[in-house]
Structures are given as structure tokens and as C-alpha cells.
């Protein structure tokens, strides 16, 4: 399931929902990404832009790729759009599988995908002005591990 919405993300509630129908899963991995203040930058919020008709279907393709690569039982992706205040979750990914390597790796893969290859655009809103952010070099290196 993929949810793109301006509503606050509650990772604990999402985990509770995700954990309800697990089949014979032995492993659940989750990841939550949060808006950081980043010290000197004094970030107050992110603004996340997306392309409604494109973003959802592109993420679906990445989920299909993950399902082809690993024997997953379920996946869930939730990503905020619009303004997200500092300290708040901006993205949540959960995966379940029989064994933990599949759950961990698919969760890691999907987060790398969201950071670099999903059609989102991220602006930091700070005391000293706003700035559109591109992925760090490390984000591309992380992503390239899966190629």
C-alpha cells in the first residue's frame, strides 16, 4: 500500500496496522525518516512537492521491483506531501517477510529509492531562507548498491 498525503504520519499507528495481517511472517522491518533541524541551518520545515499522476505510479513500480527481488509478504509506504514541520516524520516504510534479510534489504532499498528516484522535490524552509535540496552524494552511492 502506498499513501501520499498531507496528514501527519504516526509511525506507531502505522506499525500497529501493518502488524495485523502478517501471514507466516517472521520479520518486520520499518524505517521512519524525520525532518532534521540541521544545526546551523535551523530548518523549520520541509515543503514536499510531487506530481500526483506520476509519483504514485512510479513508487508502485519500485514496490513491484522490490517484490520481484525479495520474497516479501507485505510492503507499506507512506510519504508526506506539502509542509512538514521539523521533528515530524516525512516518510515511513514497512516490509514483512519470512526471514529478516529480505525484510531489511527491501526496506533499505525502498528508502534509497524514495530519497533519489521517486518524483518528489524537497524544499528546506529555514530562518535564513528557503532552499531546494538535491540528494547528497551518499544518497546516490546508497542507491547504486542495488544496481
Amino acid at each position, binding site marked *: 500500500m502506498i499513501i501520499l498525503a498531507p496528514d501527519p504520519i504516526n509511525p506507531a499507528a502505522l506499525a500497529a496496522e501493518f502488524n495485523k495481517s502478517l501471514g507466516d511472517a517472521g520479520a518486520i522491518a520499518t524505517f521512519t525518516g524525520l525532518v532534521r533541524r540541521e544545526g546551523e541551518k535551523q530548518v523549520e520545515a520541509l515543503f514536499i512537492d*510531487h*506530481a500526483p499522476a506520476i509519483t504514485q505510479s512510479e513508487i508502485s513500480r519500485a514496490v513491484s521491483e522490490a517484490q520481484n527481488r525479495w520474497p516479501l509478504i507485505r510492503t507499506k509506504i507512506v510519504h508526506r506531501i506539502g509542509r512538514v514541520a521539523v521533528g515530524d516524520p*516525512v*516518510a515511513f516504510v514497512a516490509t514483512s517477510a519470512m526471514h529478516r534479510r529480505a525484510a531489511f534489504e527491501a526496506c533499505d532499498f525502498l528508502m534509497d529509492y524514495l530519497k533519489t*528516484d521517486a*518524483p518528489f522535490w*524537497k*524544499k528546506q524552509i529555514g530562518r535564513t531562507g528557503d532552499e*531546494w535540496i538535491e540528494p547528497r552524494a551518499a544518497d546516490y552511492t546508497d542507491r547504486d548498491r542495488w544496481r
Partner: protein
Amino acid sequence: MVRIFFYGPLADIMGRERAVSMSAETTVRQMMESLCGEDAEFKAAISLMRVQFAVNDVIGPADAPVKDGDEIAVLPPFSGG
């Protein structure tokens, strides 16, 4: 009429959407060159970034054909999560 949508930093420059009338079939690349001719700020911005394009919500090459009624999306480098 072709509708062109801009996202992320390009939406700050161009607004979310522009409508362009067209006489003959063209390509995404030709439409972008035409826009660059009209708007120096757009030209400067996209010369600095690796932009992707979608025609009718499907991401594809810059030389994809564009016909009347199509929707083009101009996609700066992605950055989520």
C-alpha cells in the same frame, strides 16, 4: 493546446502550469527550446540540472513526440524521504 506542468524548483520560476498552442507535431525537446527562447530564467535553471520529462504522465525521452492535447511534465532531479 499543450499543457506543460512544472515541479519543484521549476514551479517557483514558471508557476505550476502553462498552456502552449501548437501548429504542427513537435517533440518535448523542441518545446523546451522554444520555452528557453522566451524565458531566460527558465533557460538558466534547466541548464544547471538534469531534467526528466513525462508525456501524459509517462516518463520518457526528450525526443518523444508531442501532439495537440498532450500534457508534458518537466521534472527536476528528484529528492524525497
